[in-house]
């Protein structure tokens, strides 16, 4: 049971908003010590895992080009471009992005979009601009909500699209784990069973995006009174 103490450290640490890097390394030390390892052994195991996981941080190679495009006005261009289309609302734009993200993920194209390369430079500024067209005095809180919803839409689209693709990591993990337990399933069966959830996710999150529009326009109508 004491093995779970490290999990407790993570929950309490994050709840109290202690610096997350400190929380993680403390949780690793506590977990390892409870499992009977010495501090040096835990630190070595953590160091090895950290070194083996460096590929996780490779994506930061996009930072210079994303920053450079901000410097020369990409966000401002995206804003003025989207505000020319009067029919485009924040919710409709994000609904379109949700569909795009789900469909591309379902055919295995996970890295064609993402937080650094599309949400920050394009989608979030466009979603904000579409709301500005309808309400010039949009509040900072609403702006933050719209940006957060843009990131959320990327995640929902990715998570509930990718498992429809046969060769994705999670499908291969399931096939491998079941095979190790003498249960043989084909990747195709698993990906077919992901389709009902994918459709449900589009309807549920899509409905929330439509409600977001209604919420934003309600506020602007109230402002005019």
């Amino acid at each position: 049971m004491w093995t779970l103490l490290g999990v407790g450290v993570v929950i309490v640490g994050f709840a109290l908003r202690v610096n997350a890097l400190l929380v993680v390394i403390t949780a690793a030390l506590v977990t390892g010590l409870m499992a009977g390892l010495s501090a040096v052994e835990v630190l070595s195991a953590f160091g090895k895992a950290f070194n083996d996981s460096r590929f996780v941080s490779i994506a930061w190679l996009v930072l210079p080009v994303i920053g450079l495009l901000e410097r020369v006005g990409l966000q401002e261009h995206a804003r003025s471009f989207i505000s020319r289309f009067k029919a485009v609302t924040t919710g409709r734009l994000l609904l379109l992005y949700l569909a795009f993200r789900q469909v591309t993920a379902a055919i295995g194209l996970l890295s064609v979009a993402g937080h650094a390369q599309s949400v920050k430079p394009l989608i979030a500024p466009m979603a904000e601009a579409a709301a500005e067209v309808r309400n010039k005095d949009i509040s900072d809180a609403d702006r933050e909500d719209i940006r957060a919803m843009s990131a959320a839409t990327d995640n929902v689209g990715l998570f509930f699209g990718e498992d429809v693709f046969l060769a994705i990591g999670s499908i291969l993990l399931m096939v491998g784990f079941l095979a190790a337990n003498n249960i043989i399933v084909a990747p195709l069966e698993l990906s077919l069973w992901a389709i009902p959830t994918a459709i449900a996710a589009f309807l549920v999150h899509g409905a929330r995006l439509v409600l977001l529009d209604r919420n934003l326009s309600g506020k602007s109508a109230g402002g005019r009174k």
Partner: protein
Amino acid sequence: MITYSTLYVLAGLLFAIFAVLTLRDWTNPKNYTTALFWGLFATSFLAGDLIGDLGNGILVLALALVAGTGGLGMGRPDTTSADDRKAFAITFRHRLMIPALMIPAITLAGTFVLPAIPIGGEPLVAAKQSTLISLAFAAIAAGITAMILFRQNISAPFQEGRRLADTIGWAALLPQMLASLGAVFALAGVGNVVGDIASQVVPHDSLLIAVIVYCVGMALFTMVMGNAFAAFPVLMAGVGIPFLIEDFGGNPAAVAAIGMLAGFCGTLMTPLAANFNIVPAALLELKDRNHVIRAQIPTALIMLALNTALMYALAFN
């Protein structure tokens, strides 16, 4: 053959440049410790294979201590003003979209083309690594194109990259740290304990309750571990296979696939899935680091209920 090792050198050099630029930036009140942080990160990329496991452990400890003691500050890298950017947007117009669209286009093309090019009997890039390697190439190609199209000097991409890195701060390191924590959890057998607890609370006579324990357990354990991949083997071995598949005769593919998706609902609700939830909050400069999670919770809870219902309705016919 091009592998991740090639990219580690590039990433190491990039963060080393950030460190040097930070060191010389006197507008950052914490320029020494901030430079130390990016410098240590660069060292991990450049020398991680040379300094041994304990060496890497000490390096991570140092990174956590610098960040945890408030050592990271923000500089004021040389960038453009809001008015400059509006003027640029009017001048360059749709040309600005060219490098932005090159990133997905080259990533996509590279993912398929690079593994098909043979070099001395081996593919130029292993298929497994082709997406990330293509993304890195795409970023470099788009960056060079942008510098030429918009006549920017060589320091601009590095100053702008450092500006974003300072904005993200220690959260840039969190995904890799959490992946490592998962490895330590696995080593200590955390999963086995959770699996035992889950299998003890499942009743033998109620299919509905067993499905709920499995789906909700998948989401909860995913929240604790930060990803569904770590939760899946635990809940599948503890509840999925012995109860849902063997006792109740569930369809293995449906139990596995919908269970994994129930886990993804947990991913949407946890700060431990840092690259999906915490990093974007930093990138979008949201005041509340958990704002993206707050935006996702309604969708995640409804989807968790629907996944549970779908499994109960479809997997046991």
